[in-house]
């Protein structure tokens, strides 16, 4: 029995379980909350099972319907997918426990089914090895995300959601046109098959351009980030956390996957372009974040900046370093933990003070210590200060940049860190001081504080797990404590 349990195909479960949970929520709205929590917890366990399997047997592949690629659709997971799944599960778990107390019963019945379907979509996306299936998963993700964004029904949320929906649809269509071109060029939508058949010709290049632009739009790469701040800032806090931590990672993941498997080999020029935009994103997002007077907008702009770091991987790691997958996974994971913690903390502050004006934080540090601690710890990671995962990620990027002589990018990263420190501590500074007009404060449930704090702690602890994560993605590249005598490369 136990053996049988272990042999369950956990990969499929990670998709089916939240789907079933979502449908259960639709059928029995009153059961939304328990169904949701059970599903999310189940997904965590399933991903643990999947991870165990991948570590035992190497990459995971499941031919849906038994047909196998290219006729059927394959589910596929390697270390990169696994880390993304783990990221989704852990962040999702944290946000779920937060949402448990955040939403009023009326909102809860609307939130849970959509969130569970979103979770399923994300898992499906990270597990997919089929570019058309990725399109469907992407659309699922997008629609669910838009629906969640508009959840409050406030006008700013609606406007943000509208923008977001149109942007995401456009992005999907561009991606789909790319899929079309690739399919007709190579006769398959399976990534592995495509990888064997693809050659750099006009169709492939056009597909590359369309897909890059579409996915960059969905990932909100500067200057296509115009939709992100309004959407992420106006959504309810747990939703903002989901959007910033997970949803943008979905399109980023697809782009990265395409690059790793299909385009990376020949699209060096476009890599440079993406890197350039990434650098611009870092600067612009950070500067804008610095200009904000409201926490959630600040955090949203911070996301714009952090996305920039993700795109620096293209010129740095993809081209010559060979560490792209692990670095991307690590950075994405790190950002997901930190940013979700930040948004949740911002949500707490909003609930606590009834607003999110930075200048009016009014001694939050004393009255809401856990939340401020969460914000601070997450901020440490965002700033890229040690000891945190953000630091490790930035270090890796910097290392890659320096070893390739990419001074410009290194300097941008450093400046980005400084600006990040500026906007994080802008918030923290006001959290210590008393506002001119003291406000009444409402209580914040302990679960909500702890959810934010635990995610933030996760962002810190992840900083000490870089070797493990890398080992997961590059099993051949074991990172161990070196002997005192070190390698000389000079």
């Amino acid at each position, binding site marked *: 029995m136990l053996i049988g349990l272990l042999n369950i195909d956990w990969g499929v479960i990670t998709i089916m379980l939240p789907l079933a949970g979502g449908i259960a929520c639709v059928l029995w709205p009153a059961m939304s909350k328990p169904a949701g929590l059970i599903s999310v917890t189940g997904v965590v366990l399933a991903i643990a099972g999947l991870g165990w399997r991948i570590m035992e047997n190497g990459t995971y592949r499941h031919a849906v319907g038994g047909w196998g690629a290219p006729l059927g659709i394959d589910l596929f997971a390697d270390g990169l997918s696994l880390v993304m799944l783990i990221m989704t599960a852990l962040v999702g778990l944290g946000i779920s426990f937060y949402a448990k107390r955040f939403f009023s019963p009326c909102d809860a019945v609307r939130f849970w089914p959509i969130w569970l379907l979103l979770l399923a979509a994300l898992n499906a996306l990270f597990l997919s090895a089929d570019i058309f299936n990725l399109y469907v998963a992407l659309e699922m993700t997008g629609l669910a995300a838009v629906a969640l964004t508009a959840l409050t029904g406030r006008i700013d949320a609606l406007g943000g959601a509208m*923008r977001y929906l*149109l*942007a995401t649809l*456009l992005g999907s269509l*561009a991606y789909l046109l790319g899929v079309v071109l690739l399919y007709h060029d190579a006769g398959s939508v399976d990534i592995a098959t495509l990888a064997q058949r693809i050659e*750099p*010709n*006009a169709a*492939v*290049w*056009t597909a*590359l*351009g*369309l897909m*890059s*632009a*579409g996915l*960059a*739009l969905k990932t909100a790469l500067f*200057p*296509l980030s*115009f*939709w992100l701040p309004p959407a992420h800032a106006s959504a309810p806090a747990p939703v903002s956390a989901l959007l910033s931590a997970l949803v943008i990672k979905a399109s980023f993941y697809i782009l990265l996957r395409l690059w790793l498997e299909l385009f990376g080999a*020949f*699209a060096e*020029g*476009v890599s440079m*372009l993406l890197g350039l*935009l990434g650098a611009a994103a870092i600067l*612009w997002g950070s*500067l*804008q974040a610095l*200009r904000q007077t409201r926490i959630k907008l600040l955090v949203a702009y911070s996301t714009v900046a952090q996305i920039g770091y993700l795109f620096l991987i293209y010129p740095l790691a993809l081209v010559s370093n060979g560490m792209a997958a692990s670095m991307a996974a690590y950075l994405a994971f790190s950002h997901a933990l930190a940013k979700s913690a930040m948004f949740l903390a911002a949500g707490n502050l909003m609930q606590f003070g009834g607003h999110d004006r930075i200048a009016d934080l009014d001694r939050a540090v004393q009255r809401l210590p856990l939340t401020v601690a969460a914000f601070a710890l997450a901020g440490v990671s965002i700033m890229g200060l040690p000891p945190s995962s953000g630091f490790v990620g930035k270090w890796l990027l910097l290392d890659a940049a320096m070893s390739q002589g990419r001074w410009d990018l290194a300097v941008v990263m450093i400046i980005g860190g400084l600006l990040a420190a500026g906007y994080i501590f802008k918030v923290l500074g006001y959290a210590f001081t008393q506002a001119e007009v003291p406000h009444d404060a409402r209580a914040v449930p302990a679960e909500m504080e702890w959810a934010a704090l635990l995610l933030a702690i996760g962002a810190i602890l992840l900083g000490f797990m870089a070797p493990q994560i890398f080992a997961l993605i590059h099993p051949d590249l074991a990172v161990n404590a070196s002997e005192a005598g070190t390698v000389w490369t000079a």
Partner: protein
Amino acid sequence: MILNSLLLPGILWPLLLVCLMGFRTTRALVLPLTPWAALPALVAASLLTPGETRWHFPGLLLGSEIGLDATGQVFLLLTALLWTVSGVYARSYLRQSNRREEFYFFFLLSMTGNFILIVTQDLFGFYFGFSLMSFAAYGLIIHDRSAAALRAGRVYIILTVIAELMLFAALVVAAGISGATTFEALRAGLAVMDPADRNLVILLGVAGSGIKAGLFGLHVWLPLAHPVAPAPASAVLSGAMIKAGLLGWLQLLPLGLIALPGWGAAMILLGLTAAFYGVTVGLTQRDPKTLLAYSSISQMGVMTMAVGAGLLMPHAWPFILPAIAFYALHHGLSKGALFLGAGLAGGSDRRQQRWIWLGLWLPALALAGAPWTSGMLAKQLVKTHTLYAPAPWDVLLPLLLSVSALATTLLMARLLYLLRPAARSSTAAPVADLIAPWAALLPVIALMPWWFTAAINASEMETESVMDSLWPVLVTAAVTWIVLRLGLFRTLQPVPAGDILTLWTRAFQRFQLPPDPGSFSAGWNTLQARTMTRLTGFIMAVQEKFDQLEDYLSRWDVALLCAIILAAGSTGIGIGFIWINTR
């Protein structure tokens, strides 16, 4: 040997008392002991055998050597005696003062410093003692808190700090080059050092110690500080502490090892200048204590000259050294007695005042070098060896010394005139307690030359010397008589105490960077503020542009245009690539 080992407890005893004064419970207990704090050191100094005592403390500071040679013993004796007498004197002198405890606190600290600098033979101990004494003496000088005292204190402390630093520089350079930690090694090192380095060390050393010793040009603090301090403090300042500078020279300079004619000449010149200058300015003074201070400058000039002679004639040093030591002893005790006596003068009891005045004649005559006094012996000792000096000093020095003796005598006459019983009056008569310690000093002064001649088997107390030393007294008597008859000094305006200090301050004012550090700071702040305003304006403008740009980029059409550009650009890169390849 056992007697020798009394030295350390003797020296540290005042320090222990200071520490005990810190605790409220023990303070009352030790206060009665404080006047006698120097007594153990005096006993130890008089009992020990010089040259035998040498202790090495490797753990202390950077390795300490403690020991005494004969010169040191003389210095210690002098110092301890003077501190004891002054201490006892102060007990009564400050009976009414509410700052008695404070006085004793600094008194003991200075005393400790003074003792330490005498008994340590290493650089660090000396420097430590020197510093301790110097800084603690500040408390004695400004004891009265009068404006004059505070001013004197300020001048004193500034010069002290400068002295400290010069000495530090001298020591560190000398030690750095020679590797020495003891003065013995240091002197030996200096003797073989590169002349340029040596000159630097000597310059710094002479100047650094010279400030304490009242070297001409650096003496300005003396006439300010000595008069304003309480009489017992003045006594030790002028009698004992001033000798620390002299001792510094003796320890630091390579005396007796090599001839340094240039330095010798310089010091002789400085000494002579001081000797005459001190008298000249002193004569114009009306305050007896100021006059005494100038007298000290003058007398220290003589000793400076002797040191200079030592630099000229290394071979004669073994003879000059005892002369200097004795001169220091003589001057210290006499000057101490005079300061203490000056503190007694002015009582309302006429009879008592007359006796005190008569008592003051002894140290005054001694300083003047009258026959059979210590002064005569001291001057003779110094003069004897100047005869062997290279030309022109062999002629000039004895002559000038004689003239200086005359000058000193005149100064003493002036002093006695100023202190004459009718000249001053105050309400309260000094009590017996106050007179006793002073009186105790007088026989010592009187007997000192005899003891010393016996000790060194000298023949200076002979008739020739007597005759030599008699004429200044006679001349002075005559001059005094004439002056008094004619009333010449009535209208004389005293040179302000500190004389050339005005020059100093004026010079400094010219070169002072900002007159007040506050204004420097204020200017800095305005500059900062102005820069900040300009910067803020600039930043605001940039921020506005930023916001506009962000609004522009957030426009739907612009953003989509960017997306199209990205797509087309990415494709274009590739297609262009293909196109190039196919060509």
